[in-house]
């Protein structure tokens, strides 16, 4: 039985649709599967200062699943990293918010991502730098499941395991759909948890739309004081809009029509 989305989850999705209404494009299904993951990180888990995004004591978040950036931007604006109106210039010429996140353009974005399979390695480097400097901050990397087809993800996993980086936590949006089909058909990842375990990670699994479940796990880090952690979040692509759930045609949309926007609004309103 899927957990019911609460008011905040609905409101965050409505914000995403409002952005889409202006941009008429974006990775919609991919964003809606990781709204709760991003929300829990910003609401309950990470230490940060929106007024000073480069505060040295902050926890680092590498959003390796860069195409899910609308979730990240929505939370960054919600927390005050940049003015709310910036959201409505998403993908526009001169905007600070691109179709994939870019370091140096957007306050709160720690690394440019979009080409898949880069973020976990950068997160490993950040965690090693913190260890060298004996700094206590943590490093989080959000990955997509399709992204885990990339060999570089497993290179980084080997290395994180070798260095026993307990300050590093990977969070995987396991919505089981990549851009054109189910992961089990395109490239099966199972046994997924076992793979991470065998690479030296402490593994936890949760319903990636269950805020309470993820909060209780992520506020008790590290999972193991001698290992990097991974939280495999079982999610639904397009979650929150029943008509588009698990429909790969909603992975990425351009030239969104009025009728499609109306469908998104109506189905969200029906749950409010």
């Amino acid at each position, binding site marked *: 039985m899927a957990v019911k989305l609460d008011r905040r989850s609905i409101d965050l999705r409505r914000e995403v649709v409002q952005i889409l209404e202006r941009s008429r494009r974006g990775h919609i299904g991919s964003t809606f599967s990781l709204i709760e993951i991003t929300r829990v990180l910003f609401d309950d888990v990470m230490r940060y200062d929106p007024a000073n995004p480069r505060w040295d004591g902050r926890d680092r978040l590498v959003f390796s699943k860069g195409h899910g950036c609308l979730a990240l931007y929505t939370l960054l604006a919600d927390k005050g990293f940049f003015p709310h109106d910036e959201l409505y210039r998403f993908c526009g010429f001169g905007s600070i918010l691109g179709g994939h996140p870019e370091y140096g353009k957007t306050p709160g974005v720690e690394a440019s991502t979009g080409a898949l399979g880069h973020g976990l390695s950068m997160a490993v480097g950040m965690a090693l730098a913190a260890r060298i400097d004996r700094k206590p901050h943590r490093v989080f990397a959000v990955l997509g499941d399709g992204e885990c087809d990339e060999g*570089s993800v497993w*290179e980084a996993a080997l290395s994180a395991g070798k260095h026993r980086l307990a300050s590093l936590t990977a969070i995987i949006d396991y919505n089981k759909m990549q851009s054109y089909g189910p992961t089990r058909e395109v490239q099966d990842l199972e046994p997924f948890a076992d793979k991470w375990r065998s690479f030296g990670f402490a593994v936890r699994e949760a319903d990636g739309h269950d805020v309470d479940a993820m909060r209780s796990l992520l506020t008790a880090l590290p999972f193991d004081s001698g290992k990097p952690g991974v939280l495999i979040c079982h999610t639904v692509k397009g979650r929150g809009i029943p008509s588009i759930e698990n429909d790969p045609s909603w992975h990425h949309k351009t030239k969104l029509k009025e009728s499609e926007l109306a469908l998104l609004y109506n189905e969200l309103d029906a749950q409010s």
Partner: protein
Amino acid sequence: MRKTCLLSMHELASRDDRVVFIGSDITKRDLERMAEGYPDRFFLEGIYEQHIVGMAAGMALEGKIPYVNTIATFLTRRCYEQVLLDLGMHRLPVRLIGSGGGVVYAPLGSTHLANEDMAILRAIPNMTIVAPCDADEMKRLMPATLAWKDPIYIRLAKGGDRVVSRPELGFEIGCAIPLREGREGLFVTTGITTQLALDAAEQIQQETGRSWGVLHMHTVKPLDVEGLLRTVSGVQAVITVEEHTVVGGLGSAVAEVLMESAVVRKVPFKRIGFPDVFTDEFGSQDDIMGKYGISVEGLKQTARELGKGAGTGFGLQR
């Protein structure tokens, strides 16, 4: 040159606590002092170039200056996207030390030859490419890398070459060094081809009385355009020399500048390097370079041929 480069890591680490060393599948040889003196900033990692470049980027985002070393081919081709995005796009001060630039690993075959490393890296915005000509120049280069803001590719040649660089001429990243004056022709060189050009120029002088200069372009990117144009204006022919494909490397960079320059026109010009082929031979570095005219004799021959053209009305408009 390799030895000098790696030995210098200890001094850099002692001077600057941001310095980190990351080796991929290499031994501790020549790095023992760094490893013992600064074990928390010394990493010997596995055979995963994509990962170590990304990892170095993550460290650099946290204020470190990582020096990453492995074989040049793998450090440039295998992880090209990480170099382009994680280093170039982020403008991070990571130093890629490529062992065996060119055909140093000749007997190992084309899988181990870095004949296009400079070309592919030159296409990356914010990238700096340096190919020193000898171990002494390497000694001058390494401290200069501490203050450079952008990523640097350091192209290592084979060890044990004789020293031709001169301390009194100094060293600055991005500033070409005129090593020999010449009125009739100019060799523009990088890496160890500078040694060949100095020998060729000397022999041309003795055999024909014609004077050829040598401009050592240790930094292939950013190219010292001003230094190049200054040196070129006044000579009758220009030959670039590189241990690299003629597609996209030093020769291409120099040609681009000369073609677009309002100062220099129609100067007879030739690129010496590997043609657009896999070199397809084993043997030694000298064997392969010799086959394609990257040798003292090859340089003299090309200069002779170009010189014929230089006397028939081609020249410089000043």
